[in-house]
């Protein structure tokens, strides 16, 4: 997949090691899940190129990411929530969709969501996960909405698959878990196998189908210090913006049965500061894309957090920024702990981290 370069051998060894370790870690998880229920579903508001929409977000339980089964990303615990066996039939997937519609009716009443977002903790466009039939059925189910977002690794982004949606009149975006524009970080820290070039190719394919790209970035994978992580995100957002109309830059949270959790548990990892998220958002307003962030578990030890005093306020500012793209929202929040964050940004090295908890 990756182009030949002097790091190949090392990278191969690194990938093998990461995968081996991740498999061992994941193997400790004993739980299984019911394939007739979606993993999660919720309602929200989202900023899109066409404005702010009510959104219905669906995490489909598709049997999990194939890559994760090989080992997978160092921070990803979603595979842990997948069904045993690894594939989910068309019927069950459609049962999950029905459950989601039910959820929408219960919580939003008459007002249906114009934006549908479907994630699978894998690739919706991978037909081994979601058969073409199912994809088409889902497209038809949501044909009365404005826009749909589907998650996929870049490999599976093909014009033909996307036209299933455009043909029923849906605007479509492919959500790509790029994580970072820096191949080295994506390979060695995240353990994700594709290259930025693959992302560009996927973007071309989407373009050809009249679809958009929503890039997902990961702030602070393991092995990066806080300032390195911030730097990587600033650079990545600017590079992505050339290929994606929206960038969702999300701080790593510590998920169960992951390598990140191992580091976290032994004192070798701290999730990024919310100030770091704010810093990146403020700094990259020049990038030609909507940039948003949704810190999961903000304020908790395992999620992106500051000092405990200001977490909710900063989270609110981020949410506000997501909708308005106005960096002055961050001028409204301040806290004594900014001093600490400044010091961390100035002092934390990759050989002396984390410098705070």
């Amino acid at each position, binding site marked *: 997949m990756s182009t030949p370069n002097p790091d190949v051998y090392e990278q191969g060894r690194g990938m093998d090691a990461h995968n081996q370790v991740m498999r061992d870690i994941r193997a400790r998880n004993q739980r299984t899940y019911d394939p007739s229920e979606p993993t999660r579903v919720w309602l929200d508001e989202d900023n899109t190129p066409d404005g702010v929409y009510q959104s219905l977000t669906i995490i489909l339980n598709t049997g999990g990411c194939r890559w994760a089964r090989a080992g997978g990303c160092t921070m990803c615990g979603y595979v842990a929530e997948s069904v045993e066996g690894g594939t989910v039939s068309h019927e069950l997937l459609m049962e999950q969709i029905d459950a989601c519609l039910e959820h929408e009716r219960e919580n939003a009443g008459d007002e249906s969501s114009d934006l549908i977002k479907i994630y699978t903790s894998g690739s919706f466009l991978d037909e081994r996960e979601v058969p073409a039939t199912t994809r088409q059925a889902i497209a038809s189910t949501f044909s009365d909405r404005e826009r749909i977002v589907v998650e996929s690794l870049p490999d599976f982004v093909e014009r033909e698959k996307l036209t299933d949606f455009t043909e029923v009149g849906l605007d479509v975006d492919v959500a790509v878990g790029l994580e970072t524009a820096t191949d080295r970080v994506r390979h060695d820290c995240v353990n994700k196998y594709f290259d930025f070039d693959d992302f560009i190719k996927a973007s071309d394919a989407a373009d050809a189908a009249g679809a958009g790209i929503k890039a997902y970035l990961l702030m602070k994978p393991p092995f990066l210090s806080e300032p390195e992580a911030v730097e990587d995100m600033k650079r990545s957002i600017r590079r992505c913006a050339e290929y994606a109309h929206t960038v969702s830059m999300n701080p790593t949270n510590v998920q169960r049965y992951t390598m990140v959790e191992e580091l976290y548990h032994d004192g070798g990892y701290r999730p990024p500061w919310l100030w770091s998220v704010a810093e990146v958002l403020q700094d990259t307003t020049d990038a030609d894309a909507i940039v948003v962030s949704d810190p999961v578990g903000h304020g908790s030890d395992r999620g992106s957090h500051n000092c405990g005093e200001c977490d909710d306020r900063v989270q609110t500012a981020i949410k506000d920024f997501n909708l308005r793209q106005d960096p002055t929202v961050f001028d409204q929040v301040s806290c004594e702990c900014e001093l*600490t964050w400044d010091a961390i940004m100035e002092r934390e090295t990759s050989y*002396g981290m984390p410098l705070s908890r």
Partner: protein
Amino acid sequence: MTDYFEVHERDGPARIGELRLADSIHTPALIDDSIEDAGSLWSEERTTPAGDETALTVLPHRSFPAGTDTEVEEAFAVEYPTVEFPSAAVISRETAGDHGSDAYILSSASGIVGHASKFVDTITDVRTSIPADTALLLSGVATPANVATLAYAGVDLFDSDRAYVRGLEGFYLTADGEEFLEDLTELPCSCPACQRGRDAFDREHCAEHNVAALETELARVRERIRAGRLRDYLEGQARHDAWLTAAFRRLDQQYSYLEQHTPLLRQSTLLAASDDSMRRVEIQRFADRVCTRYRNRFEQPLALVPCSARKPYSESQSHGQFHDAIHYRAHKVSMTSPIGVVPQELEYTYPAQHYDSVVTGRWSAEEIDFVARVLTEYLEQNEYPRYIAHVPPGGYREICERVEKRTGIEFEYTVSDHPTTAESLANLRETLSGESKYLKREREHNTVRAIADYQLGPDAGTELFGTEISVDGWLPSLRVHDKEQLATIVPQYGTLAFTLAGARRWLDSSVPTKRVEIDPFVPQGSVLAPGIVDASADIRVGDEVVIEGPKAFAVGRASMSGPEMTTSTRGIAVEVRHVDER
């Protein structure tokens, strides 16, 4: 390889080192402004930096934070280039080794500091894996409270990052712990930041204070190392935090690591202020050598007596009285906490005349256990025609009774109330009536032999000085001759110092020799580490050593341990006393 780091003084695993930058840094110390990070290979490709002598350059690295799996470490391990400037390599417990750098940065520091057993296991492992004459750096972890323990375990370099950040977080750090700044009514410190008073003191001042407190504590640690008294300090200071106490106790359990780094002798007094003192290497080693190396050569009965506060015991009033009563008719062995038992020949031998302990009249169960164990072993090795215990009631008596049960020996007790009453002394005198006296010469010969046993190994006294020797001088400054002078007792340490003739006799004997093999040169005053080809692994700082090379035969006192001599490329290894050209 280590061109920019040299160890000057040692106190257990702690050392005073010198990082030879443009402005030298004397370690243990903060490296704050004198480190240049060439960067992480996780985030970017890097080229070997230029580097110069103004700073320690951290070579491009992939650090493995605490919790990284060893498979990942192996897969991503980097090769460090050989460079011509002061450099540091980033390592983990797994990848620790000789990478040719002057300093090594342990990337899992944040995961081991605060966890006694992880900390001790990791540091002893790493310190053993990297060359002795390189600095070990722990970044982002030092606080005024923990830095003495960190240095004690063998860490040389730190930075102020943790202390500084902790201050910004509102924690006021001192050598005795950590307080919420907001809980403080006043500031218990005299540093410049604290001079402004509590009301004007904010978190940035707190950060500044924390760094000052850390620097002060490091100066204290350095002074304690120079004085050979860091362990004494820790027995107090480390008690302010449960993990630090646990750390030094667990380090005591790493006996062979500590033993290798602990000198045979010191000038300073060893303060035994808690039961933990009994587990110090100095104490355990003395007890061990008395039980396994020393043997009694007198034919007279044993007279067990209590120790005295004054050292050496023979200079105390009570021992003067015992001496008068015994009148050369018994072998005096002193019982003491925390040393165990001290045969009269070893009263001058470190630490028998170099300790101070807390006297309250009460013996702890630990003390009774320890002394009873040592006395039992001692009596299993040394047989006497009679066993007289001139000891007071209480702890001493209890120990004797325990030992009687274990060994089957029956003591003749000569004290009813206190050992120095006229009645008790008369009892002792009478109990010994009719016993033969040993001669002054016998006493001197046996002292020389006993010290040889203690210092060199079982039977060394007999092997080296068994026959045909003569002794002159006054105890403890005795000189041993055959035809020529062989050795002297060094009075302040109670150890033997050999002449070349003595060294040859040692080499020719069946007693294992502590030997340093050197390159073809004639050492002047000292042998430096780079000139050493090989050295016995059991050499300790302060040991007598025989030096042999194609061009010289010499004798001297070790300034490094044997393993340190063979892995060091800098520093004084042996102070040479006498040398012959070949």
